[in-house]
């Protein structure tokens, strides 16, 4: 989910909306980032501060340490979000948080804070699916109406399209996420995790000249990355020691291979559902090479690519707030006793009620 850091991300958002102004604030903390956002229903972001847990080169982030990071930063982030947005709690309509998927301990931080604030400020809670939040954020920012969605991050790799009330998963990874594969390879090369390992791979790949053959693993609509990672981990050291290639060549070859796989399954999903537009979301989505490859494919099919930059691709509080606000506007809220968090929460479990009612009810639910 996050930039392309490894593991899942947990985010929590709280969104608020005032009837006349539609102010909404939300918090998101997922994977190694925690963020708080304040949004309105038309997608305006009033504030969206975020803090990232950056580990030393060669290391990933672990649930316990990540949760400690979130514990330290969540309350100052809330203060900063409210100050920047220039709103007080009474202007908030609802509080959103990331229910899942993600790492348990970090998710709990957002959930606990949102419950306490809900009781203190007497505001309703809305639990949000992290993956659906990425999709909705991407749609509102780019204006893509009904695209095939490629959701690529450190924790997730899915090809998704909307059909009959839900975001259906047409293809996905059968083992690790593409971002996890890139992150872990960055650790082999001991690239910096700042701002994210995936970004540093992307920069290094631009200097690559020689393509190293790597396994290409597409299985029907699904992809697999763990075998590619094992292969490149094993051969990298050997080839580098023998001066057969440079770290840049390896980054270039890995990117070309895994991105080609993603473009292939995305194109097949487009053919399945007869859609010509693609939206890329998730931390890996800010990789410009992936965007270029996808754009080429889309233009050959007469479609358009919609992508966002790192402000929206990477986990943030605003995406949770906005999605929670959408649900809230359609009458959805989460009772206190159900405001739990869960490590497993599939994209297609969410009833995307706001897309069904788009034509009729619209946002009138807010005023009821």
């Amino acid at each position, binding site marked *: 989910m996050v930039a392309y850091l490894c593991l899942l991300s947990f985010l929590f958002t709280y969104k608020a909306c005032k009837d006349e102004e539609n102010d909404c604030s939300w918090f998101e903390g997922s994977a190694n980032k925690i963020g708080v956002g304040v949004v309105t229903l038309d997608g305006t972001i009033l504030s969206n501060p975020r803090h990232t847990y950056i580990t030393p080169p060669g290391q990933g982030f672990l649930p316990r340490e990540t*949760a*400690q990071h979130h*514990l330290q930063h*969540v*309350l100052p982030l*809330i*203060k900063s979000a*409210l*100050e920047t947005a220039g709103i*007080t*709690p009474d202007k908030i309509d609802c509080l959103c948080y990331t229910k899942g998927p993600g790492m348990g*301990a970090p998710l*709990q*931080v957002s*959930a*606990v*804070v949102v*419950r*306490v*604030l809900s*009781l*203190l*400020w007497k505001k309703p809670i809305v639990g949000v699916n992290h993956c659906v939040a990425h999709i909705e954020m991407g749609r509102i920012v780019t204006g893509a109406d009904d695209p095939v969605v490629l959701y690529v991050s450190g924790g997730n790799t899915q090809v998704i399209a909307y059909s009959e009330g839900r975001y259906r998963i047409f293809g996905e990874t059968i083992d690790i996420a593409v971002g996890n594969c890139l992150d872990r390879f960055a650790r082999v090369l001991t690239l910096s995790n700042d701002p994210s390992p995936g970004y540093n791979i992307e920069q290094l790949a631009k200097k690559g000249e020689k393509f190293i053959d790597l396994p290409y693993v597409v299985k029907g609509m699904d992809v697999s990355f763990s075998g590619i990672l094992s292969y490149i981990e094993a051969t990298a050291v050997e080839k580098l020691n023998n001066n057969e290639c440079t770290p840049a060549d390896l980054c270039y070859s890995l990117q070309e291979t895994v991105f080609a796989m993603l473009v292939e399954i995305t194109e097949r999903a487009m053919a399945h559902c007869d859609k010509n537009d693609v939206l890329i979301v998730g931390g890996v989505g800010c990789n410009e090479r992936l965007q270029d490859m996808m754009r080429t494919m889309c233009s050959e099919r007469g479609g358009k690519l919609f992508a966002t930059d790192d402000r929206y691709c990477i986990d943030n509080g605003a995406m949770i707030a906005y999605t929670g606000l959408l649900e809230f506007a359609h009458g959805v809220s989460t009772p*206190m*006793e159900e*405001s*739990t*968090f869960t490590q497993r929460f599939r994209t297609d479990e969410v009833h995307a009620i706001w897309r069904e009612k788009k034509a009729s009810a619209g946002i009138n639910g807010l005023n009821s």
Partner: protein
Amino acid sequence: MSFDLNWVFVGNNSEMAAVTASPWDFSCDLEVDFESDENASIVHAALAVDKELQPDKVKRQMSIANGKLSVHFEAVEARFLRTSFSAFMDVLTLATKTVEQFGQGMEL
């Protein structure tokens, strides 16, 4: 706000543990004085949502009286008691700080 903690370990003797009817030999009591029933009940309500992950190994009971939150842990092994208690302290601290910083008289 004040804070009271009391640990009880019985069952150090494995032989005795084996014949005891109840396996919940390790317990711990924690009391936090919020000096306010309202604040204590907010923290109670927020933390009661998350159940213990291993209910067959650790039990947690919470109650409120006179502005105090009382928490009682029971576990079958000391290590489960420690991890559960330690995780609970993190979120208890977080919930308490949230009440302090965003409760009545909050200034932005």
